[in-house]
């Protein structure tokens, strides 16, 4: 180990540690009752008939943050697609069919529909109960990959036309942006939740545009995760270097 680096690490680490500990001692006590923004957010969520305050923060009060967050996911997927493309000295090989132990196969195929439905449920109830587009999207996307465990890569590829998922990802992003811009066209503001009635508290259609934005995010996350995993799996299973050496 490089001696200079250890010295730097010791000095920098000690300095930062002292600073952070001193700051922690000045923080308000753990569990304190002063949360001005949080209290306002709860009131605002109730005023717009959104039962899950966090969904209201994510898709209404601070929907613009979620726009950035969604774009990060979109950009990272696009980046991974570009970075994990076939290089000039690589080609695609047909994946070998794999032997799967029977209990694994049975369990995976049994759980698959359950996981898929759970994912969709979590997305749909985003504005009512804990969960939402991000969480449910990941569950739904993972469900599909049980096919890879239960059958083989070829089976997964058949239910996973990548082009469709990439397009869905992009269209979900577009619909979020268009819903945002509709606010400007309606004369209020970007991403303003004033287009739709707020509905009855604690029902699926409550919250104005919250369920729509939530659904767009659910679609985006589910397809983005599928595309992302597909490119990593391709690297592991399909893409080989020209000279016969397998990829690491």
């Amino acid at each position: 180990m490089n001696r200079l680096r250890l010295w730097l690490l010791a000095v920098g680490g000690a300095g930062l540690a002292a600073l952070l500990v001193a700051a922690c001692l000045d923080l308000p006590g753990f569990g304190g009752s002063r949360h001005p923004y949080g209290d306002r957010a709860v009131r605002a969520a109730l005023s717009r008939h959104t039962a899950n305050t966090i969904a209201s923060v994510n898709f209404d009060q601070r929907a613009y943050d979620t726009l950035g967050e969604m774009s990060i996911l979109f950009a990272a997927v696009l980046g991974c697609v570009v970075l994990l493309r076939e290089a000039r000295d690589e080609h695609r090989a047909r994946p070998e069919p794999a032997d799967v132990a029977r209990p694994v196969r049975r369990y995976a195929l049994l759980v698959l529909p359950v996981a898929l439905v759970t994912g969709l449920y979590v997305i749909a109830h985003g504005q009512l109960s804990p969960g939402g587009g991000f969480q449910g999207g990941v569950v739904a996307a993972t469900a599909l990959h049980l096919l890879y465990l239960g059958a083989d890569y070829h089976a997964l590829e058949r239910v996973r036309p990548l082009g469709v998922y990439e397009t869905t990802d992009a269209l979900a992003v577009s619909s979020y942006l268009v819903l945002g811009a509709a606010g400007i066209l309606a004369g209020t503001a970007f991403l303003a939740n004033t287009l739709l009635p707020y509905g009855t508290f604690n029902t699926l259609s409550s919250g104005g545009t919250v369920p729509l934005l939530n659904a767009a995010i659910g679609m985006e996350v589910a397809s983005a995760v599928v595309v992302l995993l597909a490119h990593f799996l391709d690297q592991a299973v399909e893409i080989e270097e020209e000279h016969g050496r397998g990829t690491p």
Partner: protein
Amino acid sequence: MHVLPYPVAAYIFLTGCYGLATSRNLIHAVGCLAVCQSATYVLLLAVGYRDGGTAPVFSDMKPGSRPLVDPVVQALTLTDVVVGATVTALLLALVLQIAKRHGTVDPDELRELRG
């Protein structure tokens, strides 16, 4: 009134930094970066906690019946988690390409860019 949970976040952050600086494997380094990030989750959620508080979700609870934890930090943490996951994916894709182009993922052996 105590502040003990907060230094946990500081500890996690510095541990991650130590791991990053001394890492011998880039995959491990990306993992260490995720450790640094988890410090931010801990800090945010600790900041938003309220004694006796429950989740700010009213599907099965009357508004005003119980104290609530801060919903804003929870939303921030969710954003943070998504950011972390995507950055990790992108960095791992880069590590994969480094492994192919350089034949190693040991930062000690990657010394082309220097001076």
